[in-house]
């Protein structure tokens, strides 16, 4: 068997390296942030149902909004007739945010938690005009 040169230093270095690399894992052990709880506005509570079921909205709202922007801008079809027959104007700022006017507690909470940064709000207005000054 060959001798290992600088055995002590190498092993010590490896241990330090392993500790440093795994630091974020054991440092944060058991401290996982709890999933955020959404707050509904009074208006949203009153309406009871969104344009689709809650689960469908949770999982599909991004595809739906992507589909909507295509339909409204490119095809000029701007009215959504929901499964229950109710019609909605397809507008993020004016229909979605009309009920869910608490963007910080509704949209941002989950988006921040899952670290997604949708750039909808660079253009679509998310505040009422009087709050915007």
């Amino acid at each position, binding site marked *: 068997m060959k001798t290992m040169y600088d055995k002590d230093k190498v092993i010590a270095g490896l241990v330090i390296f392993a500790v440093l690399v795994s630091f974020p894992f054991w440092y944060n052990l058991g401290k996982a942030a709890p999933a955020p709880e959404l707050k509904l506005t009074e208006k949203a509570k009153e309406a009871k149902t969104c344009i689709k079921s809650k689960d469908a909205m949770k999982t599909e709202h991004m595809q739906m909004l992507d589909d909507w922007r295509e339909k409204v801008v490119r095809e*000029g079809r701007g009215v959504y007739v929901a499964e229950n027959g109710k019609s909605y104007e397809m507008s993020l700022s004016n229909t979605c945010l009309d009920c869910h006017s608490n963007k910080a507690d509704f949209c941002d909470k989950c988006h921040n938690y899952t670290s997604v940064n949708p750039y909808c709000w660079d253009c679509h207005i998310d505040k009422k005009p009087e709050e915007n000054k």
Partner: protein
Amino acid sequence: METSRRHFLKIAGISALGIGVSSPLIEAIASPDSDHAPAAAKIVTGDNALHAKQWAMVIDTRKFDSADALTPIIEACHKIHNVPDLAEVQKRHEIKWIWKEEYNHIFSDQEIRFPSDHLKKVPLLVLCNHCENPSCVRACPTKATFKNENGIVMMDFHRCIGCRFCMAACPYGSRSFNFRDPRPFIKEQNPKFPTRMKGVVEKCNFCNERLLIGQKPACVEASNGAIAFGDLEDPDSEVRQLLKSNYTVRRKPGLGTSPAVYYII
């Protein structure tokens, strides 16, 4: 067990028959359930929407008696579309959807050496011509700008990558680029219409969003009848009636873009 070819073919034939017959049967049994399922959601055009094959505009310049008469029209448009006011901050960053221009500047290929007093005094309104054969649409690499079914040259701000090919292609200077975030320069935000972000091109959209809910463009409403709006393909439309009874001109017709904005001078 020994299987003869004959035996194998029999089994195979019966199996194929079984599969063929059973799948429609299963569907027939399952279908009563689907009757109870809620009707699928639909996406439709609003009932009030105005339709045309090619929207067009006739601007009667004789009906404006001063440059100030044009200002409320421009303001009406820029206000509802959240157009920032950058002209005073930095002229080269200015965003324009509809604006005033001298006759000889916009009709440079049919210049008038000695303009009439009226032309000297009152500038013309210019906006996107919503050409029948738009050069900007051919230049756009992402189809962010496209010819709509109703003839409007639309912008899909979602898709614009800010390459500005369309601005180079447009012979009318109808397009503006957002060199900076426009939001701080919008005096009063209209929540019904989005703003733009830095890095996209914008221009007049013939109020497509208003046509969808049955309203005529804002400039037409604010013009007290000086601007007519209608379907170019419909011989009975207001614009066709005006074209029939007046001598009209279009900007740079020789380029072949076929503008849909007509001027009565």
